[in-house]
């Protein structure tokens, strides 16, 4: 029994972590949808949803039940297996990056005293993330680009002209902007010398004072990444795959009920993922400049010192606030900008964003070389 428990312990810990992250992210995503409708309402001089619960706070649950009790249509001419597979692929690709989100600094706890059977032996820290993969950035980029398959398969399998157009446009758009995104990340990797998200936050903490957040030395990379992130998540002004006014919802025209909800969820989780990436790579992740210094100075080191629960909590809240700022930017842009035309989109991606990103890489390589020799 004890032996079995010891073998299973890492997996139990991983599962608990994943469930916590999963639940938390799903709640945030549900309320992002509500916040989007509210903020869009305010931008357009409306009130937004306010009937279900106080200030409409129960709206996400009402929507969920509506999705469950709607008829789940499968069009006659569709390729059934692929039609069912597409939302699963899209959602899985959206969920997978969750494990590398760095939510906060590790908490120092001697777990050996807390857990029975000596399970916590040798564990002195609880990290506020599920895993810190050595290839963190590559993992996120690779998995999110699998999401293209979900959309392309959905567009093709529905056997509707609008869906096919939406799927094709989406594939072309996402792979075009993925290039700029990959190139804009290289600048940060050059400065940090690692691909792991935790390592990149560490590199920002230990950087010279003027570059504590990589947004300062990598401003061009940040802007390119942000624009590419909007395109990757198919959001306004790059929402051509959906384009209600011309493609009547594009790749998910033929999807209804929960299958539509899965695509919807995938889009919002993807928004959250790119916000996390943006915050981690360019805004120091959970790191608030000066907080560790303040935490060392005061008499409250036992409460707010580095490694305590207080420090982790403040950093975590800082991390979430940065992410909410990005999510708000998404909504704000959606309420403000019109949609691109498709040739404008391709022109912008290939003739402006990619050259700028490549130029940023070259300049960064030269500067790193000159400053480190």
């Amino acid at each position: 029994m004890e032996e079995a428990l010891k073998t299973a312990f890492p997996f139990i810990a991983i599962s608990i972590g994943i469930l916590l992250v999963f639940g938390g992210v799903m709640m945030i995503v549900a309320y992002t949808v509500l916040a989007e409708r509210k903020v869009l309402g305010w931008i357009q001089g409306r009130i937004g949803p306010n009937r279900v619960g106080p200030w409409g706070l129960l709206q996400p649950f009402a929507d969920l039940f509506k999705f469950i009790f709607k008829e789940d249509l499968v069009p006659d001419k569709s390729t059934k297996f692929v039609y069912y597979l597409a939302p699963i692929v899209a959602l899985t690709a959206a969920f997978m990056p969750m494990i590398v989100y760095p939510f906060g600094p590790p908490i120092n706890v001697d777990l050996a005293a807390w857990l029975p059977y000596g399970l916590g032996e040798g564990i002195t820290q609880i990290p506020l993330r599920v895993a810190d993969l050595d290839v963190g950035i590559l993992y996120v980029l690779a998995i999110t680009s699998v999401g293209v398959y979900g959309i392309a398969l959905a567009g093709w399998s529905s056997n509707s002209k609008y869906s096919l157009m939406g799927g094709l446009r989406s594939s072309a758009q996402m792979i075009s902007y993925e290039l700029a995104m990959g190139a804009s990340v290289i600048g940060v990797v050059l400065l940090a010398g690692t691909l792991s998200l935790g390592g990149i936050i560490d590199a920002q903490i230990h950087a010279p004072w003027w570059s504590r957040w990589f947004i300062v030395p990598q401003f061009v990379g940040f802007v390119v990444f942000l624009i590419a992130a909007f395109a990757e998540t198919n959001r306004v002004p790059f929402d051509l795959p959906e384009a209600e006014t011309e493609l009547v919802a594009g790749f998910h025209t033929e999807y209804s009920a929960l299958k539509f909800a899965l695509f919807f969820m995938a889009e919002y989780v993807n928004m959250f993922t790119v916000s996390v990436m943006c915050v981690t790579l360019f805004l120091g992740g959970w790191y608030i400049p000066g907080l560790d210094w303040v935490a060392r100075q005061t008499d409250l080191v036992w409460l707010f010192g580095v490694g305590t629960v207080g420090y982790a909590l403040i950093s975590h809240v800082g991390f979430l606030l940065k992410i909410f700022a990005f999510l708000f930017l998404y909504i704000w842009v959606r309420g403000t900008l019109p949609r691109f035309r498709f040739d404008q989109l391709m022109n912008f991606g290939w003739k402006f964003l990619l050259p700028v990103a490549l130029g940023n890489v070259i300049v960064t390589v030269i500067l790193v070389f000159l400053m480190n020799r």
Partner: protein
Amino acid sequence: MTEFSLLDYAPVLVMFLVAIGFAASQILVAQLVGPRKRTATKLMPYECGKDPVGSARDRFSVKFYMVAVAFLLFDLEILFVIPFAVAFKSLLAAEQSGTVYYGTIAFVTMMFFLGTVVVGLLYEWKKGAFDWSIQARAEAIAEAAELKRKGGVFSRFRKAA
């Protein structure tokens, strides 16, 4: 340097199972709970209320293939840079402490490689691979001619004589 352990990647597997399980269960729930009133009209592909004309599995523009091919090329080239980007700072540090010019060698090599990438990009640009349609190609050529007449890309930043 930390030691490689397969256990570090266990979360990927667990997350994969959780994600697939969640998505599949949602689809199952939708099958079980939702009403089923199928009619022929409802099951038709949506085409703004008209009867659909022909099949959607038609030929589509070759331009999408062009984009895919260009993407493959440039994505590979960008992936080649990433291992260099990870190692560059430690190579420079090794150069400082050792006698071999690791960092300088890497720098020169990578500059040559990036130069090739830029030349490739310019070539595709000139050949019109990034112009989405014939009309867009014509517009791009007209714009280039206009720029040339005005005296180069930076002409707008010069003061008028």
